[in-house]
């Protein structure tokens, strides 16, 4: 494991945060929502200057969304995943545009695909989807198969051997 990653994890633990290394050059840290801006600014000041990606995970069993801020330190060749959990029934988050202007695009995308409202982001207009009227498509309670069969008019036809497709259940 990289020495700097180890040090960073220790440092974050001293700040009362759940942090753990994920490999030789990567670590994650779980941050409460109200401390996100502070921690991200701290990370930026201490080497993790590059904001790579903002991802979102829908933990439907926990009724929570998880936002993952993916940061990189090119000097140390290390990566940080800053994770924030927000409740599913009130999907709201502060925009991080004041730290990285780049966040604007990622927040707009996540607003479109998960319906999370980013407070302070000036432009959350639809980005990729044309005329989308259903619930955001990447939420786990959105049934893509039913949607696809309904919109594209799937018809079962025994005479031509067309059967209804079945979803494979992964354990």
């Amino acid at each position, binding site marked *: 494991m990289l020495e700097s990653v180890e040090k960073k994890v220790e440092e974050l633990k001293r700040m009362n945060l759940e942090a753990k290394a994920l490999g030789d050059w990567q670590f994650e840290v779980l941050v409460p929502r109200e401390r996100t801006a502070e921690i991200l600014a701290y990370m930026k000041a201490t080497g993790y200057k590059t904001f790579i990606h903002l991802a979102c995970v829908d933990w439907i069993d926990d009724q929570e969304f998880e936002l993952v801020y993916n940061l990189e330190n090119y000097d140390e060749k290390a990566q940080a995943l800053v994770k924030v959990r927000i409740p599913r029934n009130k999907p709201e988050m502060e925009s991080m545009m004041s730290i990285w202007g780049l966040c604007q695009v990622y927040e707009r995308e996540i607003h479109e695909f998960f319906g999370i409202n980013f407070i302070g982001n000036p432009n959350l207009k639809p980005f990729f989807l044309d005329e989308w*009227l259903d619930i955001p498509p990447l939420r786990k309670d959105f049934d893509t198969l039913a*949607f*696809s069969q*309904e919109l594209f008019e799937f018809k079962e036809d025994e005479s031509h051997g067309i059967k209804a497709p079945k*979803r494979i259940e992964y354990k």
Partner: protein
Amino acid sequence: MSEWKDLTNFFRGRSFWMLHYCTGCGAMELPPTMTSRWDMERFGVIPMATPRQADILLVTGYLSLKSLKRLIYTYEQMHAPKWVLGFGSCTINGGVYWDSYNVIERLDKYLPVDLYIAGCMPRPEAILDSFKKLRELVEKGEAKGYEKYVKNYEWYKANQDRVLKRTKPVLQKPEEVTRSA
């Protein structure tokens, strides 16, 4: 007059100028088909830069709703006689995107497809074979997709509008949507 038609069909079948609509992975199979290894120019097929100049429209792979709209514009800019080749299983039944919310499943609901090439992806040999097959169809005067499109325009237009101009949610009622968002 039928001899004249046969003659024009003979020439049309030997000079396909194609416009490849490169959205999906099928676009990757075209460079080897064009260049030295398989050389489709020996069948008179060459790539063209604009829809005005093209005779055949290759739809290389999956089509999202956004690109379907552009594909229809492109098709309608082409001059008759024109033919559409559906490429790979994505244009036939959705392929690996069978349950995707944003990828159409059957291309010939929206545009008149003259020939499908099966495979995921079809190899260059299959593409060359499809050109020969299309030539046969054209010479026999059976590839009439563009006439079908004009004749059944209402049906095609209704299908296109159904997916492209949605006015209400597909699965839920509007009040439920506003509540959850």
